[in-house]
């Protein structure tokens, strides 16, 4: 990395220690101007190469099966090259008839260990944080809640002490895959939609990055690629789905897809399988015998923020 590059990086805001008022003073302004002049002469080669195929890539719904196959083959090639591998696969396994996925989470059991958050990052090829910002993308946020309150505003997000702590309970929150999803309504270009099996997905090659969906989501479930996503070659998961965990681009939105690459092949989501306490239950809401359906029928379940009327496919319950 050359010197000019570092210079520019110094100026990038670091979210964990956000730029405070008054800090953007004259000095940093002059520094910035200097950096700009320097930067303009030799801009770093970091930007993704322009590709006409990608520029003209159609919306997932507009592509014929043949075009989809061609696009996915091209993407596999691109990903193999980018991550120095040969085993990338991108597929578009569709929804099964008679399946509508649902999730139930047992708040009596969750201990707040955040294993789900990390398994999710590994499975779904999230951005691992750039050098400039501590901005690893995570789809699951575990809230440490006050016993006796369901008010998320009293929750703590950045706890580092040993869990579970006395007087607390833990509530992991991720995309609720709403049946009346505000994010889907918000999108000006139909880059996000709900699949017939209930999964809300994003077409990463169609999203224009306006972030209106992120503003609309009551569960803070949508995450944006503020920089070019970085995944170390050895940590990449090469088994991917077009609408799921394939590597994303700078400037597009992404979110939990219930691990669409896994669940459409009959597996459970990664967060479900890693959970050491068995708090997480996943299954087909239309199947009366499924675990998740039995929980909904028999347990005292509740919906987070029921008052916003989004009709989620995600339920919480206490034993």
């Amino acid at each position, binding site marked *: 990395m050359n010197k000019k590059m570092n210079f520019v990086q110094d100026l990038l805001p670091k979210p964990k220690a956000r730029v405070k008022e008054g800090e953007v003073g004259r000095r940093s302004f002059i520094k910035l101007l200097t950096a*700009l002049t320097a930067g303009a002469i030799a801009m770093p080669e970091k930007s993704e190469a322009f590709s006409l195929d990608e520029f003209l890539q159609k919306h997932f719904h507009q592509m014929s099966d043949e075009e989809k196959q061609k696009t996915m083959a091209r993407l596999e090639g691109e990903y193999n090259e980018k991550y120095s591998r040969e085993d990338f696969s991108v597929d578009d396994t569709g929804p099964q008839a008679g399946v509508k996925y649902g999730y139930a989470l047992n708040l009596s059991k969750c201990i707040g260990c955040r294993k789900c958050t990390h398994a999710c990052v590994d499975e779904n090829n999230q951005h691992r944080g750039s050098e400039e910002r501590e901005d690893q993308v995570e789809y699951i946020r575990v809230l440490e809640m006050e016993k006796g309150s369901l008010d*998320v505003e009293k929750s703590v997000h950045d706890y580092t002490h040993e869990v579970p702590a006395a007087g607390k309970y833990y509530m992991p929150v991720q995309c609720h895959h709403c049946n009346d999803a505000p994010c889907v309504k918000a999108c000006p270009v139909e880059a996000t939609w709900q699949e017939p099996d209930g999964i809300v997905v994003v077409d990463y090659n169609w999203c224009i*990055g306006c972030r209106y969906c992120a503003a609309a989501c009551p569960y803070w479930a949508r995450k944006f690629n503020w920089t070019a996503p970085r995944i170390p070659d050895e940590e990449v998961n090469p088994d991917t789905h077009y609408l799921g965990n394939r590597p994303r681009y700078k*400037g597009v939105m992404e979110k939990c897809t219930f691990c669409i690459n896994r669940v459409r092949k009959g597996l459970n989501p990664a967060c479900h399988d890693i959970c050491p306490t068995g708090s997480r239950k996943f299954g087909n809401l239309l199947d009366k015998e499924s675990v998740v359906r039995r929980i909904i029928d028999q347990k005292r379940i509740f919906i987070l923020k029921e008052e916003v009327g989004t009709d989620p496919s995600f339920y919480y319950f206490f034993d």
Partner: protein
Amino acid sequence: MVDYLTFVFKSVRGMFSGGVRYRGWLAFLMALMAMGGFAYYRQAVHGLGVSGMGDQVSWGLYIANFTFLVGVAAAAVMMVIPGYLYHNKEVKGGVLLGEMVAIGAIVMCLLFVVADLGRPDRMWHMIPPFGKFNFPVSMLAWDVLVLNGYLLLNLHVPGYLLYKKYKGEEPAKWLYLPFVYISIVWAISIHTVTAFLYTGLAGRPYWNAAILAPRFIASAFCAGPAFIILVLEIIKGWTRFPMGERIIGFLRGVVLIAGLINIFLLISEIFTEFYADSAHVASARYLFFGLHGHNALVPWIWTSISMNVLALLALISRKFESRGVIVRNIPLLMLIVAIWIEKGMGLIFPGFIPTPLGEIVEYMPSANEWMVSLGIWGVGLFIMSILLKHAVDIETGEVKPSAK
């Protein structure tokens, strides 16, 4: 056709010639644009990570400026209504100028939206039939439509009138009057739709309030005409543009009434939030008093409210009206700044704080964001300046057909 091309040629030549002060001003704006261009280039290369935004506060300075400027653009209608509908000759002369301001403002709106996009290269995804335009479901789709429509209306009406004036002909009513009526309704719609963009989000209690749209209109009809008055004062002072004495007085009245309504709506909002003191008050509490030790916006909002109140008192007292050009316009400048703060620090930012999951992360725009924003203001003011210069040229007969 040849006539029209000569008109365009002469107009453009007129736009870029003028006194030293005028050309100096244009040069200054071009410098701003160049700075903004560099900053935007950095953003394009590194991504929106060069802004102060993050997943917690995912809209910032760009969308704040956008929201404010939609109001300025909408406000041109305040001159159109009496000018065209009531054939108020005094105001009519100024209408053209108001519409020029509107054009500059809308161009800035569009640029701020584009600057905020993560993938500006994919803008064509919005254009049917190649793209997919989520109309009528997405409010953002509505906003794109009404803003571009308003831009076209405001290009057509003054463009046609000026061309006719240049030719020394009477304009044909049917070629502009219908569009004038449409643009009146349209102006209200651009700010209403922009308000609906926020009020339609049930997951953001701070925005999800019916009072937002009326408050947008009230504050726009305060800051917008205030901005136009400043423009008129400059033109009145520095050119031979024939301007009626009563336009500015009329607009000051509009500013005052809209400003008072805005304050009334603010009080209604504050009362509802804090008297009920429900869980929904968190954003408002953060904005006005700070929350759990986080209070970055508190000084901003109180500055805004103080400036609002002081400026309106000054307008009510009418003591400054007959004073010098600087003194009499200070209250107007204060109102513009106050309402700009109100739209950004007072509306957009706190809507994200705390997040829907109760996390508090504060936001301040990064230097790069400020530079891009200044650059866009440079573009808008540049467009306004050359268009206004053009209107003045035609009205004063500086640009006219060559004698046969």
